[in-house]
């Protein structure tokens, strides 16, 4: 099994400086995970991740049934900074499955140098239809010359322009620092997305 880890170094952090500077090829690490059954997306053909899959929970009740309507719904990913990491995993699963669920990613990031998985995302964005990832990057501090927008913070208006409208009933995944996630989730609800269609993950560094 191949596991991809994305590490955002937090100065004076407890874990990330070790992973970035000290860990060497060949070193042995003990892993716990992958963790988190909530902030995940699986291609419709694949069984969704069971809610309870540990010992003692074997039984029919363990497998959640996803209504077919939500399986066919488009998927909107919204990332703030390194919050793109779990969303990249979803886009990657979408690409590997050659799944035709419509996928959009809105990625807010400071500068071109801060973009995680730039090459991989570009490849998803140019993949043949219908597996294409519809990718929009909003640069907040410094934009490349070919960016359609001057650098600036993400606004409700940009989110409205660059995401599936509520009428398309998308499943929305938002990941980023807490203030980013809360602000974007509030905008989405104000635009008519039902709170239950929005899944969020807030991160803090360590």
């Amino acid at each position: 099994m191949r596991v991809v880890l994305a590490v955002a170094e937090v100065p004076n952090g407890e874990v990330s400086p070790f992973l970035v500077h000290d860990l060497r090829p060949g070193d042995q690490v003990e892993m716990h995970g992958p963790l988190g059954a909530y902030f995940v997306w699986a291609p419709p053909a694949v069984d969704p991740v069971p809610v309870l899959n540990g010992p003692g929970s074997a039984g029919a009740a363990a497998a959640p049934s996803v209504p077919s309507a939500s399986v066919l719904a488009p998927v909107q990913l919204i990332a703030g900074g390194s919050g793109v990491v779990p969303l990249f995993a979803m886009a990657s699963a979408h690409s590997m499955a050659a799944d035709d669920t419509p996928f959009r990613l809105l990625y807010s990031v400071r500068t071109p140098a801060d973009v995680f998985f730039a090459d991989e995302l570009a490849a998803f964005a140019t993949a043949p239809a219908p597996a294409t990832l519809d990718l929009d990057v909003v640069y907040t501090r410094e934009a490349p010359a070919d960016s359609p927008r001057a650098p600036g913070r993400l606004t409700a208006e940009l989110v409205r322009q660059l995401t599936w409208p509520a009428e398309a009933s998308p499943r929305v995944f938002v990941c980023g620092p807490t203030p980013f996630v809360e602000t974007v989730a509030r905008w989405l609800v104000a635009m008519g997305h039902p709170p239950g269609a929005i899944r969020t993950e807030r991160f803090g560094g360590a």
Partner: protein
Amino acid sequence: MQHLDGNVLAGDLADVFGADLTAAVASCTVCGTRGALAELRVYRTAMGSVARCPQCDAVLVVVTRGPDHPMVSLVGLRALDSETVSTVSGWTSASRPTG
């Protein structure tokens, strides 16, 4: 203090219960609101985590970490349901009144 959310409890809860509970539906003993455990507001310190109801702020789950293992208190949970969260409207920070 900056909060996170219930997604960060995945590891500690898995250590205690042997399963990933973040997608399970929790109900708050105080206000009765139901939603994914992953959407609780979680305040983390070196001592552990306190998870609060996004609607009424009641303390629902407390995780403390001993020398080598976590201990979990489900003090404010009326129930924990393995029903898929996609079937409930859920709570989100977005539905919480601001200000």
